[in-house]
């Protein structure tokens, strides 16, 4: 992004290649609508482009882009009811992680249950959970995206974990590990 802000137009393609897939995954989970996610991604990346003249050298691009995407997402939700289209998108997202068909089905069912539980949570808790657990942001980065403190993000994420665990019980005991103090994910099944 620094190169792009400095005047190299080709550098934006590299920014896109690094940032866009993560933003798209986030938007896809939130909207469950591929067309809407694509549109919001385009708007987000255009906003990143528009801020070219004000880019701060050394500033983190990913949390900033997530914050823009989240802002646009909130805007789009305010403008109309959230469309939930089961068009197989969720299956596509997770397909790459499960090589066997039965594993894929089990993982998809579990993921769908988690998504349903998350959908019932307050937006702030759900987003904190998704940014940390699903998008791999650290607590500090998630706090930056959400405009709050690290402590508040930890609390929101913890509440979301607790709600999901209560809802899903032992099925996710080993699947749903909380991140450590730095927001890093521990290996599955390993509890400290």
């Amino acid at each position: 992004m620094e190169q792009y802000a400095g005047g190299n137009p080709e550098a934006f393609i590299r920014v896109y290649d690094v940032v866009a897939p993560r933003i798209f995954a986030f938007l896809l989970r939130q909207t469950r609508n591929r067309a809407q996610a694509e549109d919001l991604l385009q708007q987000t990346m255009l906003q990143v482009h528009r801020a070219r003249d004000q880019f701060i050298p050394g500033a983190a691009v990913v949390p900033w882009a997530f914050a823009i995407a989240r802002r646009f997402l909130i805007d789009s939700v305010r403008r109309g009811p959230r469309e939930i289209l089961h068009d197989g998108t969720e299956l596509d997202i997770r397909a790459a992680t499960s090589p066997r068909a039965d594993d894929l089905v089990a993982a998809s069912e579990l993921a769908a249950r988690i998504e349903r539980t998350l959908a019932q949570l307050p937006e702030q808790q759900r987003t904190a959970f998704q940014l940390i657990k699903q998008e791999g942001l650290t607590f500090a980065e998630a706090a930056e995206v959400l405009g709050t403190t690290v402590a508040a993000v930890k609390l929101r994420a913890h509440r979301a974990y607790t709600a999901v665990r209560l809802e899903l019980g032992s099925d996710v005991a080993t699947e749903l590990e909380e991140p450590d103090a730095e927001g890093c994910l521990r290996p599955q099944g390993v509890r400290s």
Partner: protein
Amino acid sequence: MSQPVPPTLPPYLRDRLMQAVRSEPVPTRTDGARRGALVVALGFAEMAVISLAISHPKTWGRPVAYLDTLVVTWTFVALVVTWIGVGRGRSMLGRSPRSYVAMIVATPMLLLVTAIAASMHWPATLADASTPFRHAGCVLGTLALAGGPFVAFARLRRGRVARRPELTGAAIATAAAAWGAVALILVCPFTSPVHMVLGHLLPIWLVAALGWVLGERLVAVRLKAG
């Protein structure tokens, strides 16, 4: 639950975005800095014009050293406050909400402490000859003088996503009001602490409240319709 691999993006998305980027040219950082400087200069020019319209700078019987002390210290405070409120630190999302709250709360207090300290050194300035009408005049003066810098600072941050747009708006407004306070002491003859508080310092919080109300509209990014 393992972390999923991000979905593959179709090539047409990138092509569509690059086409949109090409159709909407944005200046480089260097050009942006030049434009920003021009906007700020225009904002301060507007403040200077209003200040001169109120009155030409006079001592109004105040000790020159008292006035110099106040102008220098308040200018320093305004500079620091602008650095905190308008600058974004090392994050594209601006400074932390805590910094903004601390800055908004502390600015009038800092100015008051320096004004009282100066008045203690020049006791004649403690005498109160102001009236409620004069207090109200200075409230309006602060609002008018802060207008130019506020528009300029808001222009610098317009359309840039912020952690808390309303708080960012209040911080920008506080910085603008601090400059308004500096300009106002050059033209206001009253120096008593009561007048300073009611006419010059409390209006800073009034401007901050205005910034809070307008923050979402001025600073936040919005999804384009359609």
